[in-house]
């Protein structure tokens, strides 16, 4: 075990997966010599050489498109989009081809590739560098979307993403890159994609969060426990698509109450789908409507106003109390 932050943890996964499987390569803008603008790909060029760590031209569609071709060839490319705000240029390739080759050829050609991107706000960044657009990617059939919340699961989920037979959009909450450290085992650890984690058990209410919002959620849980003695079950969603409906349903069936915390804008976010699934499966166990504590349906503000936009522990707490008291 070693204590490390999320950047180091993802880096560890990359090193270990590239060591384990020679078909894994890394490509993106500034990932080699510069080791990535957040240093997530540190040490890879030195260790594995420019045959496997490619500093690509500045062309997102080109990166995703060629990676698709590589994946079809049998390579496992781990691509980087420097910021999620630039990844949209790669969407035509991902939506039009990456997500489709498997079904287009009925499984004959598959696209095992990873698209890494830092996402989310709270780091006082420039325009386009703070959005949370996981729902856009999760809405594409054939694409998997994974969001870690801390160093340990970031490492384990990255290993899973690299080994996965399908295109995985791996969204890294940049606010959490260096914010805290966790114990991460030396030996390789893999978490299954498509599975949420119950990080804390409880009986009174189910709180669902992902990415940077996990820490916000934890604070709210502590606060409510202190104030009211409530027992909150906290779920780290981890995979946006395919959604772990079984874990969510089992938890809500147990507690009868649920709050979802979402950094992304309110309209049509992951929370909407979660609530729809709860409606489908365990409606008759609900004691109260499922609440959402979300961002707003406005353009993400420049950083002077950013903290008011993001869900805070206070807002989450209010949502929890309202739901408990319904």
């Amino acid at each position, binding site marked *: 075990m070693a204590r490390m932050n999320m950047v180091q943890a993802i880096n560890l996964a990359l090193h270990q997966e590239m060591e384990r499987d020679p078909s894994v390569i890394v490509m993106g803008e500034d990932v080699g010599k510069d080791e990535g603008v957040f240093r997530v790909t540190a040490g890879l060029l030195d260790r594995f050489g420019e045959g496997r760590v490619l500093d690509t031209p500045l062309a997102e569609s080109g990166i995703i498109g060629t990676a698709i071709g590589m994946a079809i060839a049998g390579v496992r490319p781990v691509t980087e989009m420097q910021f999620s705000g630039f990844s949209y240029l790669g969407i035509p390739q991902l939506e039009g081809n990456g997500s489709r080759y498997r079904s287009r050829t009925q499984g004959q050609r598959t696209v095992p590739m990873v698209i890494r991107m830092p996402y989310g706000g709270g780091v006082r960044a420039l325009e386009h560098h703070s959005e949370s657009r996981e729902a856009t990617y999760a809405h594409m059939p054939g694409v998997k979307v994974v969001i870690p919340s801390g160093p340990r699961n970031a490492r384990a989920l990255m290993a899973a993403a690299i080994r996965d037979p399908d295109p995985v959009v791996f969204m890294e909450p940049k606010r959490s890159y260096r914010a805290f450290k966790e114990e991460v085992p030396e030996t390789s650890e893999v978490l299954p994609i498509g599975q949420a984690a119950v990080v804390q058990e409880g009986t009174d209410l189910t709180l669902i969060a992902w990415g940077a919002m996990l820490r916000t959620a934890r604070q709210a849980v502590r606060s409510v426990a202190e104030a009211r003695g409530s027992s909150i079950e906290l779920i780290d969603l981890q995979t946006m698509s395919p959604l772990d409906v079984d874990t969510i349903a089992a938890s809500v069936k147990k507690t009868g109450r649920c709050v979802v915390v979402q950094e992304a804008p309110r309209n049509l976010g992951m929370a909407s789908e979660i609530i729809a699934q709860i409606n489908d499966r365990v409606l008759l166990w609900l*004691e109260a409507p499922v609440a*959402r504590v979300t961002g707003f349906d406005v353009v993400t503000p420049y950083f002077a106003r950013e903290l008011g936009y993001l869900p805070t522990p206070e807002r989450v707490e*209010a949502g929890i109390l*309202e739901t408990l008291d319904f």
Partner: protein
Amino acid sequence: MFEFLLPDLGEGIHEGEILRWHVAIGDSIEEDEPLVDVETDKAAVTIPSPKSGRVTALTGKPGEVVHTGEVICSIEVSGESHEAAPETVEVETAALVSTEAGVGAPPFSPQRGERSPIPAAPATRRIARELGVELAAVPPSGHARRVTTEDVRAFAAGGAAAQPSRPAPAPRQGDPAAAGPAVRAEPAAPPASATPTISSIPFLEINPLPDYSEEGPVERIPFRSIRRKVARKMVTSMILAPHVAHMDEADVTELEALRLSQRDRYQDRDGVRLNLMSFVMRAVARGLQDWPELNASLDPVREELILKRYVNLGFAADTERGLVVPVIRDAHHKSVLALAKDTATLAAEARDGSIQASSLRGGTFTITNIGPLGGTALVPTINYPEVAILGMARVSEKPVVRDGAIVIRKILPMTLAFDHRVADGAQAARFMTTLIRRLEDPASLLIET
């Protein structure tokens, strides 16, 4: 705009019937002038106007029932402009409206003409469904008139209203981004009438049981399943329906002779045992078509008597597991033979436990025949929510007077217990008399039914 809510008309009365309005829409009225006459259970009352001004709205036509706390009249008060916001005189009405449950206060009634769903959490609805409880019949204790799970369970257990289990919520601070559902934002409605709690029935005192083991050995058997269900049904029936028992006897000498003469033939031909009860069922089914108020149910919420134009006869059957009441459907269309057959089939299924749940539901009238086991008379309990039940005791040979002479005849004692909310002695007597005539004269049973 002043909205006048119907005040408490005294002694815990919560509603009244509009007799007549003293004003029409558009009329001017002075404070203290007569506004409306309202009749309660006790008397007719004239309500004077609390304000001077112009009447802009009236709720409730003569004959309609209005409830305490409902807006019955709107008055544009003199001196106020048109644009004034409606003034709800909460202080005044709070003083007038009793918040304590009074004796005889009716159970929860919904707003007039309201057909909207009853507010209840999904979990509560599931429990209600499982317990077979109609949400509309359950007195709500939750805020904003919400029916809680506790309310449902209490109702299913026998009618006592639950105490409000959740405090009213703190003012909503919630997530500013939230635009929550309308239900949450609903302001507190006028206080709903509560059902009487047990403690409010005079002289009723339920004390904890003494420790019987102090006197001698005891055995405790769990009170479960059918036994417990029967207990619930009996308490419910006895509390809700005022029982009257009308007793009479039928001379079934000729009927019995007929029955016994035909018994073997049908036993051989159809394997059906013709019993006396089948003949009684036939006669009862016909009788219920002529006296439908004995083949009905009372809807306390909508205050309507539901007359059923079909006759599904239940008959009490004693089984190892307890008392069950299998139901013969469309008895009014069935012959004596068919009734005998169905009785035998259902009784057998009840005894061996294979009877379907659907065969235990849907009854409109019940017959209970204790005769084979003995007894000179019985006063049966109505199978709520039915409104009448016929009990048959043991047929025995008795000396009776006919044309001045004493003869020995076979006599069948019967008791019709009925719900006096719904029927009166006269109807019961007429029903029974006709029934008896048809049993005493089998030819009329054939010809008239």
